[in-house]
């Protein structure tokens, strides 16, 4: 397993009344796998991502274990961590408009990555830069190298960022809402790019998104988070075909459906619970249409189904 997370919890704020951003998450990502982490705002997706690369603010209290490629992330020295982040784990952020330094050309910024992270000698730098931009299907790569970020469109910038992130052939690529800021047509092209990188280099990719359509299109596996916990995970095929957790069902139902000339959207009643007041019971119980007394009294157990599907729900057996 490339990445193994065991019982990871992240808390912020006071010790007496902590805000439990992530609680008890177990997660595995295999080499070359594309995993989608889904959930609504505040469900802990981004915090989980930051915890994976130890990039949380100092105030965060983290417990649990993260092993990357057989090494424990918490045992790494700052120097080893820097090497790991620079070469083996790469990250892409949501907004391609602000992810590039406005004062340097694209070539300059790509060159910096290549020279410092991939030890490319100066005389080969330009060739490698062009090659990198070609690999992300950038039109007129030679010209792009001379341009500044503001001269590029959002989709082109995201391509540049993907090129930078894949330059070191990382083992794991974390993409935090990589397509949210882009048009639907550009989204599709960027998603294809992710799959190509995986196929070409065997890079495992974790895509954090609230867009289930993105996950359905390119992911192998889906992880659904709610209030800092994993509520359901499994292969994309099995979860989309047979969602077991009522939250997953509600999320899938909330994708707008075009019926003739009318659009149906099913919303989920209620709100995400306050992460400071989570009891030791199912966090979705208050919004769940099929909750029973037990759901408000005890934390749900893990229930396993075929094809490595895991569900945390007292009533999982009853739904299909």
């Amino acid at each position, binding site marked *: 397993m490339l990445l193994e997370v065991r019982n990871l919890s992240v808390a912020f704020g006071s010790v007496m009344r902590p805000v439990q951003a992530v609680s008890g998450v177990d997660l595995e990502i295999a080499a070359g796998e594309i995993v989608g982490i889904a959930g609504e705002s505040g469900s802990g997706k981004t915090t989980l991502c930051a915890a994976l690369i130890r990039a949380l603010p100092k105030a965060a209290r983290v417990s649990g274990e993260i092993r990357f490629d057989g090494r424990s992330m918490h045992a790494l020295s700052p120097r080893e961590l*820097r090497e790991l982040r620079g070469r083996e784990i*790469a990250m892409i952020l949501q907004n391609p408009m602000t*992810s590039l330094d406005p004062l340097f050309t694209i070539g300059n910024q790509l060159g910096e990555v290549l020279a410092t992270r991939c030890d490319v000698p100066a005389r080969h730098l330009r060739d490698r830069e062009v090659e990198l931009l070609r690999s992300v299907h950038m039109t007129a790569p030679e010209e792009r190298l001379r341009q500044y970020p503001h001269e590029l469109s959002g989709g082109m910038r995201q391509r540049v960022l993907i090129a930078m992130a894949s330059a070191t052939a990382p083992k794991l690529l974390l993409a935090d809402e990589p397509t949210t800021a882009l048009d639907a047509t550009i989204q599709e092209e960027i998603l294809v790019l992710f799959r190509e990188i995986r196929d070409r280099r065997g890079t495992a990719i974790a895509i954090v998104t609230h867009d289930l359509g993105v996950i359905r299109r390119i992911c192998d596996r889906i992880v659904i988070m709610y209030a800092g916990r994993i509520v359901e995970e499994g292969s994309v095929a099995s979860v989309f075909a047979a969602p077991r957790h009522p939250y997953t069902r509600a999320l899938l139902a909330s994708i707008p459906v075009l019926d003739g000339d009318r659009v149906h959207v099913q919303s989920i009643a209620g709100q995400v619970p306050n992460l400071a007041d989570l009891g030791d019971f199912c966090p979705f119980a208050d919004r769940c249409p099929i909750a029973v007394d037990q759901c408000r009294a005890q934390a749900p157990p893990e229930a396993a189904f075929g094809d490595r599907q895991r569900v945390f729900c007292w009533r999982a057996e009853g739904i299909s």
Partner: protein
Amino acid sequence: MSDSHIVGATPSSTIPWLERWFPSSASAGGQPPLPIVTCVCCALLVVAAIFGTWLAPYPKEAVSLGDSLLPPAWQAGGTMRHLLGTDQLGRDMLSRLIAGARISLATAAAATLVSGMFGVLVGLVAGYVGGILESVAMRVVDAFLALPFILLALALVATLGTGFGNIIMVMVIANWARYARLVRSEVLTVKQRDFVTLARIAGVRPLTIMLRHVLPNVLNSVVVLAILDVGRAIILESSLSFLGVGIQPPDVSWGLMLADGRTFMGFAWWLTTLPGLMIVFAVLSFNSLGRWLHVRFDPRGQL
């Protein structure tokens, strides 16, 4: 960049031809035109400061008691040999004003440069590192901004003695805190931007991030503040020299000439008026240039 500045129409109260020569900070729409007069004035001052020794008709200390207190050439009793007249020792006013430009500008430039560098260093480190270091540094900045400048200058010169180095030090003490405060606030915004986050995640060293990504992104405002500060520094130096704790004879400075000429103010107006006009001219020129840079390069107006 060029298409993002259309904020609103130019306010109707501004006068186009005046705006072109002396731009105000109020012109909101579009990019302000290059202020030609301002640029020419600043260039003239700089040329006088650098090549003054060759341009001036006489050496600044050439005494000629027979020609003392000659009025400017256009006034009765004036002579073409001394276009702007002479002082009580018969020294040529034009030559001394040109020599004064060198001292005033050199002092202002040196003081601005040193206080800028020191302030940027403090602000950059405080803003980027944060925590206790930032709190302490910013309280020190507050303390320095609260110091009454003239009193401090008098006290320092009284203990350290006069001299070019000491004057510059006094001016740096008076000015560096403003840079530190500006840079720190700018760093706080740049630090939050995604390319800095990405660099940090990619394992780039903090020092590299500070120098390569944060510093270049805050320099814009620093340059604008520095140019605006040159005018301020000229006034500071003149005040110090006027009070007798700045430039000392035989060096010439406009503030010093002003002080020397006071005795003869009743019947030799040129001894005080001309250096005073030079101070006004220099400060106006640099302030105007700074204003233009401000509107052009820092349109959000954070200064």
